[in-house]
């Protein structure tokens, strides 16, 4: 009962946060200089034509009125129509979202697989050369800008060696009958490898280091000593007893990191020409496509909020020591 009340409270807070986010997003984009029409100088439209376009976009109305209209549509689930594509924002984001999701999920799975195994291994081998080097490598990878890492990998594997494609999600001229057909073939996997690895490398440093310090804490605990005393092998102690407890903070970080990663990994998508949400944000802001920019940022906000909420709830289940006061 207490838990349910806690969840309701958190969900309510989430909605308040999102409402504030929507408002800030709305006004920020309209306050910065620039508009979605005046930058197209070779469009063949004269001043009246451009004014007409602004009218079509609903931008000739007073700001307050625009805001109310936006909110009214928002509660109906209508995020407006993109100025760039003239399609409903929900449709455009939907298409991109799948692409970003595939990339992010793959990257997270790889990152956390590496993170948990390497992190626990380093902790086990603490204070040896392996530990020191391993930690240094993790920190270096995390500090290297992700686009730099991406470009280096592109340079080596695509340009120099020619093993992998230059970017994009498919080879030119391919046709597909549906999602399954598109995503489950070798060509797609070849395009997925480099961006996924780049993103994974960058994201793996956090779980690695976190797992390591978490393990270090756990190893000192009494019940580990008891496990040894019982006569269990080192491997069994590590895998069955230590890792499970050490996983707790890492799991919650996973939820939070996933929320941020959905944000679109703008840099990776730009370097690898991956048609996801990240690239869309850059294009939308640059061309002042307000509905798109607001829509994408709102989605990211929702993702982060939801995942944070999930992380909190998950933790309250996993760790019986946590109370809900």
């Amino acid at each position, binding site marked *: 009962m207490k838990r349910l009340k806690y969840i309701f409270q958190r969900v309510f807070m989430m909605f308040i946060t999102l409402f504030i986010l929507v408002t800030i997003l709305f006004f920020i984009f309209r306050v910065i200089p620039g508009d979605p029409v*005046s930058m197209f100088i070779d*469009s*063949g439209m*004269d001043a009246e034509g451009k004014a007409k376009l602004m009218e079509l976009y609903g931008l000739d109305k007073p700001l307050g009125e625009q805001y109310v209209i936006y909110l009214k549509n928002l509660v109906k689930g209508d995020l407006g129509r993109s100025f760039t594509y*003239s399609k409903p924002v929900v449709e455009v984001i939907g298409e991109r979202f799948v692409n970003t999701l595939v990339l992010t999920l793959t990257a997270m799975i790889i990152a956390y697989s590496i993170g948990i195994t390497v992190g626990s291994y380093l902790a086990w081998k603490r204070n040896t050369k392996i530990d020191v080097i391993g930690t240094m490598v993790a920190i270096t990878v995390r500090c290297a800008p992700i686009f730099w890492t991406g470009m280096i990998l592109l340079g080596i594997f695509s340009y120099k060696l020619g093993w992998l494609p230059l*970017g*994009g999600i498919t080879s*030119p001229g391919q046709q597909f009958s549906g999602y399954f057909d598109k995503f489950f073939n070798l060509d797609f996997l070849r395009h997925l490898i480099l961006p996924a690895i780049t993103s994974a490398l960058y994201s793996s440093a956090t779980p690695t280091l976190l797992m390591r310090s978490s393990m270090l804490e756990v190893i000192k605990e009494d019940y580990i000593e008891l496990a040894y005393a019982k006569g269990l092998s080192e491997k069994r102690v590590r895998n069955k007893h230590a890792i499970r407890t050490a996983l707790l903070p890492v799991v919650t970080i996973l939820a939070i990191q996933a929320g941020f990663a959905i944000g679109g990994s703008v840099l990776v998508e730009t370097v690898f*020409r991956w048609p996801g949400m990240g690239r869309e944000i850059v294009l939308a802001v640059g061309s*002042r496509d307000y509905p798109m920019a607001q829509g994408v940022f709102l989605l990211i906000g929702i993702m982060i909020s939801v995942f944070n909420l999930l992380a909190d709830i998950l933790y309250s289940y996993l760790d019986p020591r946590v109370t809900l006061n």
Partner: protein
Amino acid sequence: MKNNFKKGLIVFLTFALVFSFVGCAQQVEEENLGGQEQNNEENEETALNPENKVPKIEFWIFSQTKDPIRYEAGLMIAEAWKDLGFEVDAQVLEWATMSAEGFKGHRHDAFIVQWGGKPERVDPYHWLYVMHHSETAKEGGYNIAGYINPKYDELAEQFAFNNDPQARQEAAHEMQEMLTRDVPQPSMFKRKLTQSYNGAKFENITPGIGEGLYSFWNFVNITPTGEDKILNFGAVTDIQLLNPLTTKKGQDQYMLKLIYDPLLRIDENGEIVNWIASSYESVDDTTIEVTIRDDVYFHDGEPLTAEDVKFTFDFAMETQAPYYYSQIKALESVEIVEENKLVFKLSKPFAPFISNGFTMCGILPKHIWEKEYKEKGAEAVLQWENVPAIGSGPFKFDYWRVNEEFALEANKEHFYAPQIDGILRIPYTNDYGVIQGQIANEVDMNGANLLPMDLEEIAKNVDIETVEIPDLGSYIMHFNMRNQPFNDVYARRALTMAIPREAIIEVVMGGQGFKAFNPVAAENTFWYNGDTEELDFDLEKAREELKEAGYLWDEDGKLYYSDDFEATSFLSE
């Protein structure tokens, strides 16, 4: 508790230290300046009134990643202006901001725009009337400099609202003389457009005037040499909107020109040729008779008739469809008089109606658009996605995977059927990506202008050939005559004479460019007036003109107005 206090104290002390350094430095600067001013006053016999100082110029330039040419050229020009004695603050601005504030809002001092030389601009209506007539000096209008000259307006109106080519040419020549003398927004230089394609896989290239490989004629004439009959072409950014009435992007229009047919087309040399119209005649100043072909079909099999033509123009006028309406505003009515004949009546003579209106407005299928219009209303139709786009052109819409690839299929039943089987358009995120695509033979054609370092790069693939065409557009420096110092023609002339054109072309463009002084291109032989004043780089002459106009320099070489200075708007009366 104690630990926290210690930490807080250390942080506080660090900040205090940093701020005191900054404060000291500022004070020192101010003291120095104060000292300088005192020195100036003591040394000058006739002390220059600081109120007469020529105001600082806020010069907006592009960022290096957005356009390296305008960035570097901008910095060089700013330096030259400083040499002359102007105070210049070169600021990098994002294009969205620059276009809203300067291009539309006219709140700028100076910025550079690279104007495209499209075939529709062969008739210099855009360059001479739209950019310089006083009626377009309002917000959003293309008279960005705010040039208001009644004599010029008179000539411009003679030029635009008159069908006699001789009279138009005379007016155009005189207008060019005035513009090169008054320099409200002078042309500076233009690119030698260098584009590239795979010469081993495709031949029979037709680089069209102003557009080169992007020209309609290139797409329909280009011929495959071997097995691969699909032309892959790479570009930065994807197609955005296939609605011919409201699309904003030039790239979209290149594709729409292939899908839709207009009544007339401008050929690769800038001449107007018949297309859907098999003939046309200007019966009088405001009446045009058009006869159309009877062998044209839309991609869904329906025939293209006079009904579709009438519908297209009526519909554009009624909904004020931005792209179409801008070209056909002078239209009063269009009536079908016989099965394949229409009569267009204009409200007043408007010469560009034929050269722009008939060539830029693709004919829409009435049976599709009328239905859409009746069901959803004007607003929805203007914003309609229009996928698949059904036209009558030499290419049909095939499929479009957004941000992945866009495909057109050849329409072999068309009266001017293409030689290739289809076009595949692939978006990359930057120029470099497209070039790498060319080297890897993923891309057969690249319409982007190649810079010297790009040329070095494509040399890696021996099949890649280049084609050079002169740009019909130019880089134009937009002054703002509404602000000082640009309200004075002598200041503008001096600033123009300080632009180091030769150096910019050599250093920044690697020699791939030409000087330009006139918005009308030299290659545009009928309209171009070659006998105009050319204010090329000459700092001496600039200083002389300034001195004669009543400008003074102080000890530091900074410009001041003389006490009795009066600004002259323009020299052409």
